C-alpha cells in the first residue's frame, strides 16, 4: 500500500476550507445537495482509508499471517504505513464509530421528540401560535410537520412580513431540510474535519428557505428586512429599533465585510444581492475533491490487496 492512503484523510481539510465560500456563492438548493453529498462521500472515503491502514498493520501480526498463509516479511517490506500510524488509525476508527453512534442516538431522539410534539398539537392546523412574550418561530418536523410561531412575533409583523416568515418555515418542512443537516452532521461525526462543511449545510438550508420565501412573496427585500427585523427583536439586548416597520429603502452601504459575520447578516446580504446562479467552475472543484479522495482510497485498497497476494505467492 502506498502513501495515497493518506490522501482521503487530507481532502476533508480542503473541503472544510472551501465550504463557506461555496455556500455563499452557489444556488442554495444545489449547495445543500452538493455539500451534503460531499460530507457523506468524504466521510466514507476517510473511514475507508483508516480501515485500510488498520488492516495493513493488523495483517503483519504473525497469527493472521499464519491463518492467511502469506509471508510476513514481504508484507512488512512492501508496506509504507508505520505501525504507529496503523495503531493511530485503529484508535481514530474506534472514536469515529463511537461518535457516529452518539450522534445517531441524539438526532434520533430529537426527531422522535419533534414528531411526538407535532402529533400532540391540535389536528388540522399547520401553524401553531405559542402565547407569551418570546420572539420565536421554527418548523417542527413531523407528520404533519408544524410551524410554531410566538404570538408576539405575529403581532409585530404586518401581513407581508407574516407571509415571508410562514413561506420560509413551510419551505423547511416541504424540503425536509432537517434530513440534510442530520446526514451532514452524522458524516462530520465520523470525521470531525468535516464539521465546517456540515455547518455550511446548516446555513444553506436557511438560504434555501429564504430563496423559496423570496420566490413565493416575489420580494427579496421583504424577506431580507423581515429576517433582519425579527433577528434584532429576538436578540436579548434591548435594541433601539422602532416597533414600526424597518425601512430598507435606502441604498446598501458598501463595503460591509461579511468575512466573520454570523449566519443572519450573511443571509440578509445574500437576499439584498441578486439571486445566485449556478456556477459550473465551483461544481467542478467539488467534483475534483471528491474524486481525488475516492480514487486514492480505491487505489490504496487495490494496493493492499496486491501486496497481500504478492506476500502469499512469496510464501
Amino acid at each position, binding site marked *: 500500500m502506498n502513501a495515497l492512503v493518506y490522501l482521503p484523510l487530507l481532502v476533508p481539510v480542503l473541503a472544510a476550507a472551501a465550504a463557506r465560500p461555496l455556500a455563499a456563492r452557489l444556488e442554495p438548493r444545489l449547495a445543500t445537495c452538493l455539500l451534503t453529498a460531499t460530507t457523506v462521500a468524504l466521510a466514507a472515503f476517510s473511514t475507508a482509508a483508516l480501515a485500510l491502514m488498520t488492516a495493513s498493520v493488523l495483517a503483519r501480526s504473525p497469527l493472521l499471517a499464519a491463518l492467511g498463509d502469506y509471508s510476513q516479511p514481504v508484507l512488512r517490506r512492501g508496506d509504507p504505513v508505520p505501525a504507529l500510524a496503523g495503531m493511530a488509525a485503529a484508535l481514530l476508527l474506534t472514536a469515529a464509530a463511537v461518535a457516529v453512534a452518539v450522534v445517531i442516538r*441524539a*438526532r434520533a*431522539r*430529537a*426527531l422522535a*421528540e*419533534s414528531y411526538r*410534539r407535532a402529533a*400532540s*398539537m*391540535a389536528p388540522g*392546523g399547520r401553524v*401553531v*401560535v*405559542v*402565547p*407569551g412574550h*418570546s420572539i*420565536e418561530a*421554527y*418548523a*417542527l*418536523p413531523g407528520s404533519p410537520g408544524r410551524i*410554531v410561531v*410566538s404570538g408576539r412575533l405575529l403581532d409585530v409583523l404586518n401581513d407581508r412580513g407574516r407571509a415571508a416568515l410562514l413561506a*420560509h*418555515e413551510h419551505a423547511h*418542512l416541504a424540503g425536509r*431540510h*432537517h434530513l440534510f*443537516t442530520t446526514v451532514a*452532521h452524522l458524516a462530520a461525526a465520523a470525521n470531525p474535519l468535516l464539521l465546517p462543511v456540515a455547518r455550511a449545510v446548516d446555513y444553506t438550508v436557511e438560504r434555501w*428557505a429564504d430563496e423559496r420565501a423570496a420566490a413565493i412573496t416575489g420580494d427579496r427585500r421583504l424577506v*431580507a*428586512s423581515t*429576517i*433582519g427585523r*425579527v*433577528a*434584532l427583536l*429576538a*436578540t436579548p*439586548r434591548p*435594541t433601539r*429599533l422602532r416597533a414600526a*416597520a*424597518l*425601512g*430598507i*429603502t435606502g*441604498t*446598501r*452601504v458598501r463595503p460591509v465585510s461579511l468575512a*466573520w*459575520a*454570523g*449566519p*443572519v*447578516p450573511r443571509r440578509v446580504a445574500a437576499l*439584498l444581492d441578486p439571486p445566485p446562479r449556478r456556477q459550473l467552475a465551483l461544481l467542478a472543484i467539488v467534483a475534483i475533491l471528491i474524486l481525488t479522495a475516492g480514487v486514492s482510497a480505491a487505489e490504496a485498497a487495490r494496493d493492499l490487496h496486491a501486496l497481500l497476494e504478492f506476500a502469499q505467492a512469496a510464501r
Partner: protein
Amino acid sequence: MPDEEPARDAGPGTSRRPPGALEAEVMDVLRAAGAPLSPGQVRERLAARQLEELSYSTVVTIVSRLHAKGLLERERTGRAFAYRPVDDASLAASQMSQALQAGTDHGAVLGRFVSGLSGRDARLLRRLLGEDEDQPG
C-alpha cells in the same frame, strides 16, 4: 380503604397508587371540567369519582406541582386560585421553546427562523438594512 389515613403532609401519593397517578387524575378532572376549578372543587370531583378521600392540602400540593411543571395555568378567584389545563398545542410548543433555549440537541432538527445575534452581527445587520439612513418604511 375509605378509613385509610389521608396524606396530611406534602406527599400526594397514598400507599395504593403509583406516583403520578393522582396527578393524572387531577389533570383528567380539570380537562373534563372545561372551566377553571379551585382546589376545593377538584377535591369534590375526585371524591365523586370514588377515589380515596384526599385532604384539601394534598389537592393544593398536587395542583401547585402541576402548575410549577407548566401543565396548569391559574388565575386568582377571591382568596384561592382556580386552575385550568394549558392546552396541548401551546404546551408542546412552549416546552419545545424551552428545549431550544436550553441549547439541547432537540433544537438541532428545528428550522428556526433566526438564530441569535452577536453584538457585532446586530451592528452589521443594521448597516445592511440601512437603518443608519433612518428612512421610515
